[in-house]
């Protein structure tokens, strides 16, 4: 089956306007403009497209929450891809640029938005300029600006560069960042659909989500639902990294198993045995590499039933030699650095988790510290304004759930019967230590 999202793998230079229009580009927007905005929303709702940024919320439903009011409305494209293990949006931005622009324009038409901002992470510096050039081509062709496609709808599209902050991928923090404020989350309600950017109705969608929209409009909701499973329809990009033979992006219909995905990416690197999987980067709980997990279909509901999350489908593979205490500390260092500092449980919790985990890793701790990090993580849950405060607890709690003995082995090396993973006498220090 040809790729629907990673079309650059089938058609060279599909990301440029010239090639894109030769391969059916802008048929989706043309068709959308012949429909009423409400009809466009109905098709997307019926397709059951679910947000690809991680939350998996119905995209059509999100659009339908925008009130029919006069005055400016906004679409914000979340291109602040920063989750460790995620690099799918980057490939769309770089190589299937026009499909993203068209998807964002269809969304903007559906909610009758006046401006689209693409929030590109600052590190995607050149990609942002390339996106601007493609936006200009779409503008020259009449798809952006005044009276688009001869309709009475007008819309602008701009790129806004972030500057290095994971938290700005959180939608309300992203809005603050565009407004020139600190990138910290907002209290909700009000939700962005009602009061978002500059206090106006706003839809925030992930890059991959919007890239799904043009083919849905062209081919219809029934076509889309024929791909994937009933509750998780459509194609999905899986980012494969870590101990995998062929790292990279793979597009598959939702519903294939972890086993099929790992085989597609060449299996575990060096023929090693699989120890653990992070299905959605550092934010989703770790899963052990058991047959039960390997045979689980990659859908939102099936991965959730295992106690983890499909999230953005950034799959990090950990082989049999991986030290789980080390891996957990690595992830906690990330969350401690990226906590924006607004909510005390997250700010202080990530700090203390790092402190005590570091003590465990350096064999300066006791068994009580293992219990302590578990207690701290549990107390952080559900107590912050955004999901980062909860994400930060998942590496700790899931590692303790499946590999608790490895933590004990660090604090009681003599008594344990569990063999700590093979380590060099002087392990490689973590950067910054």
């Amino acid at each position, binding site marked *: 089956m040809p790729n629907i999202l990673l079309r650059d793998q089938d058609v060279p230079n599909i990301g440029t306007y010239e090639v894109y229009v030769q391969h059916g580009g802008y048929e989706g927007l043309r068709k959308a403009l012949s429909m009423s905005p409400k009809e466009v929303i109905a098709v997307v709702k019926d397709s059951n497209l679910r947000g690809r940024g991680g939350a998996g919320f119905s995209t059509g439903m999100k659009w339908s929450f925008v009130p029919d009011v006069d005055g*400016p409305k906004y679409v914000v494209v979340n291109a602040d*891809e*920063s*989750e*460790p*293990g*995620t*690099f799918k*949006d*980057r490939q769309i931005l770089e190589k299937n640029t026009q499909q993203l622009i068209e998807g964002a324009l269809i969304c903007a038409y559906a909610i009758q938005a006046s401006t689209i901002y693409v929030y590109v*992470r*600052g*590190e*995607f*510096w*050149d990609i942002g300029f390339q996106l601007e050039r493609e936006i200009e081509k779409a503008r020259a062709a009449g798809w952006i600006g005044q009276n688009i496609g001869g309709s009475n709808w007008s819309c602008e599209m*701009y790129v*806004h*560069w*972030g*500057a*290095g*902050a*994971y938290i700005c991928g959180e939608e309300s923090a992203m809005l603050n*960042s*565009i*407004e*020139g*404020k*600190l*990138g910290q989350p907002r209290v909700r309600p009000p939700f962005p659909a009602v009061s978002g950017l*500059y206090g106006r109705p706003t839809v925030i969608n992930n890059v991959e989500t919007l890239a799904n929209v043009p083919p849905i409009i062209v081919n219809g909701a029934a076509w889309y639902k024929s791909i994937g499973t009933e509750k998780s329809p459509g194609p999905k990009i899986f*980012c*494969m*990294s*870590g*101990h995998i033979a062929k*790292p*990279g*992006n793979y597009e598959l219909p939702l519903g294939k198993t972890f086993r099929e995905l790992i085989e597609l990416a060449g299996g575990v690197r060096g023929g090693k045995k699989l120890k653990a999987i*992070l299905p959605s980067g*550092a934010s989703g709980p770790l899963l052990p590499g058991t047959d039960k997990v390997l045979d689980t279909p990659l859908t939102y509901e099936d991965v959730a039933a295992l106690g983890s999350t499909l999230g953005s489908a*950034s799959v*990090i593979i*950990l082989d049999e030699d*991986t030290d789980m205490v080390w*891996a957990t500390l*690595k*992830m906690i260092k*990330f969350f401690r*650095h*990226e906590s*924006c500092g607004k909510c005390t449980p997250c700010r202080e919790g990530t700090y203390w988790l790092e402190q005590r985990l570091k003590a465990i890793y350096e064999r300066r701790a006791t068994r009580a510290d293992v219990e302590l990090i578990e207690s701290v993580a549990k107390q952080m849950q559900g107590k912050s304004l955004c999901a980062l405060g909860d994400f930060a607890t998942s590496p700790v709690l899931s590692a303790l759930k499946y590999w608790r003995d490895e933590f004990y082995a660090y604090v009681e090396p003599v008594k344990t019967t569990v063999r700590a993973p093979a380590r060099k006498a002087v392990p*490689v*220090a*973590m*950067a*910054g230590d």
Partner: protein
Amino acid sequence: MLKDKYAEQITKIFAKYPDKRSAIMPLLYLAQEHYGYVSPEGINEVAELCEIDPTQVKSIAGFYTMYRETPKGKYWLQVCTDLPCALVGADKFYHDLLDYLGIQDGDTTPDGLFTVEHVMCLAACDRAPMLQCNFRYVENLDMEKMKALIEQWRAEAAAEAQASSD
């Protein structure tokens, strides 16, 4: 002055947003380009352009990692050492690079050419080890490639110094 050097760009930036405050981030990038870092003068100029207190601008500059609050080396190398990169040797690569240049974590070489820092995920996990050099990605690295790059950059800098003294 930013407003003279970048007049056209500044007008374009303000046209993008309904509120002047939104221009703080893009203007800080201009200040950084002009002064080499977000200097106190740069902060004040951005504040004046956005009609806002300099303290507010400084808080934004401090919140994000891509604004340098101190001058850095000519080549600002930021190595990703997050979990996916670390699983394929990014920590070792980072320390080898520091050793090769004879500096510590976050330091600049005495000749002012290289600053080396470790950073969080750069969304290039499938091409690790990797780094960002002055906002450009360099991927699929090892120390052999790195040494060749360093030589190339040294030569580049020497040629530029030569050209400017001629």
